[in-house]
């Protein structure tokens, strides 16, 4: 095999079957023409080194073949890249928040703080790598679609507050979430996150949380069903693991439904009644789930909560004791959080029922 054949074979190996012979034949003719012109000038045949110099002038086979490719020459193009960067930033913010929460829970559960922080850093790093990898794979696929997603072109000024979440500082985060700190007075008065922005942020958060629940992202370096939970000498590990195994799939189904519903809401912000039906269904699921967790689950038995009356009494006792003695029982706080968690879906159901009946969502009205 001559140098030219070897060079052309390396180029051909990078090309798709369609048009490969055509490209190689044309390149071969060009190389031969170059060589003949050089030989004519020198009045002799070229040495292998001189031929190699010509081939090097043409370029590395990988680079030459890439120029003949029909698709994009980059993983993610300049049009899509800002969206990729934004998605990664938001995902990282959620990862950091979950990691901090995980470190807090582990510390409260009796684990050594330095060990919890170390595991938190390790899992944050692996989670970030997974997130960037998944975002890049998604960007690669979108980049190669004939038509770019409509959210790149169909955007509204009222949704832009959400995009300031990616300002990785406290001021930017508060601003984006509605407090408007740092914004001019005239902007702060009128700023309100639109349903589209809320839906998108909810979808991202739900996706990351579902991935964590399903074990795709590990926080604390340990899967959820292997956590050891010992609080104030009481071992809740068995109750937690039993509860997790019972609700694993229902939570996955809920998480996926939540993401799909949020994407639907973002794509159809004016479908008020359909959104209300979805909101009611998801809120009912949350209400039933929280009630089960509080009153029936293995965790509720471990927390010694038999019925709603006991749960309310426990909550009241926790608050009273906490304020009087300054000692807050963790199990009491957990019960209190679950009781309060029952109120959120109940309120959501009521609001959504009003939207379902009237067909009006006041958040869709233009800000003045």
């Amino acid at each position, binding site marked *: 095999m001559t140098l030219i054949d070897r060079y052309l074979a390396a180029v051909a190996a990078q090309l798709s079957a369609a048009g490969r012979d*055509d*490209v190689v*034949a*044309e*390149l071969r*003719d*060009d190389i*031969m*023409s*170059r060589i003949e012109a050089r030989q004519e000038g020198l009045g002799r045949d070229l040495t292998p080194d001189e031929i190699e110099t010509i081939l090097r002038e*043409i*370029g590395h086979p990988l*680079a*030459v073949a890439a*120029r*003949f490719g029909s698709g994009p020459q980059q993983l993610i193009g300049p049009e899509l890249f800002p969206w990729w960067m934004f998605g990664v930033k938001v995902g990282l913010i959620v990862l950091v928040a979950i990691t901090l929460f995980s470190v807090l829970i582990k510390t409260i559960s009796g684990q050594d703080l330095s060990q919890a922080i170390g595991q938190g850093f390790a899992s944050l790093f692996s989670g970030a790598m997974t997130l960037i990898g998944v975002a890049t794979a998604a960007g690669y696929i979108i980049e190669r679609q004939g038509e770019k997603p409509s959210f790149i072109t169909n955007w509204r000024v009222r949704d832009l507050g959400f995009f300031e979440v990616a300002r990785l500082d406290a001021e930017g985060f508060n601003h984006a979430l509605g407090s408007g700190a740092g914004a001019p007075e005239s902007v702060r008065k009128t700023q309100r996150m639109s349903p589209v922005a809320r839906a998108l942020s909810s979808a991202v958060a739900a996706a990351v949380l579902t991935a964590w629940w399903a074990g795709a992202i590990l926080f604390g370096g340990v899967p959820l069903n292997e956590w050891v939970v010992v609080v104030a000498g009481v071992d809740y590990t068995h109750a937690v693991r039993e509860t997790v195994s019972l609700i694993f799939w229902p939570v996955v189904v809920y998480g996926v439904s939540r993401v799909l519903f949020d994407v639907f809401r973002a794509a159809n912000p004016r479908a008020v009644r359909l959104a209300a039906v979805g909101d009611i269904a998801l809120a009912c699921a949350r209400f039933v789930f929280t009630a089960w967790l509080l009153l029936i689950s293995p965790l509720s038995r471990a927390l010694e909560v038999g019925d709603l009356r006991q749960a309310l009494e426990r909550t009241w006792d926790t608050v009273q004791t906490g304020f009087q003695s300054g000692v807050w029982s963790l199990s009491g706080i957990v019960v209190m959080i679950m009781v309060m968690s029952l109120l959120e879906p109940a309120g959501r159901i009521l609001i959504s029922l009003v939207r379902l009946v009237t067909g009006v969502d006041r958040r869709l009205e233009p800000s003045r």
Partner: protein
Amino acid sequence: MGEAETFEALRLELRRGSLVLAVLARLRSEQYGYSLRMALAEDGIEMEESTLYPLLRRLESQGLLTSEWREEAKRKKRFYRLSAEGEAVLARLHAEWRRISASLETVLA
């Protein structure tokens, strides 16, 4: 980045868009790849193979060029020529080039 590198990057950026015009103009008469590259080089427009051949394919897929394989000097060569559509596009691009050039001359004066 030094001034020389900055200038080179900007120069390449400036000439990139004009290459299409040069190739289309040269292909008013039939050429194969190597002869086209040589003709452009004589005009002061150097083009690498890895730039020229993909460009020729793109212009052909856009219907601006036609091509055919023929044997010449005992080798098969692919000859390119401007299509009727290519003639029309070239005329419009040439007019646009003159307009841009005149505007820039005004700005730069």
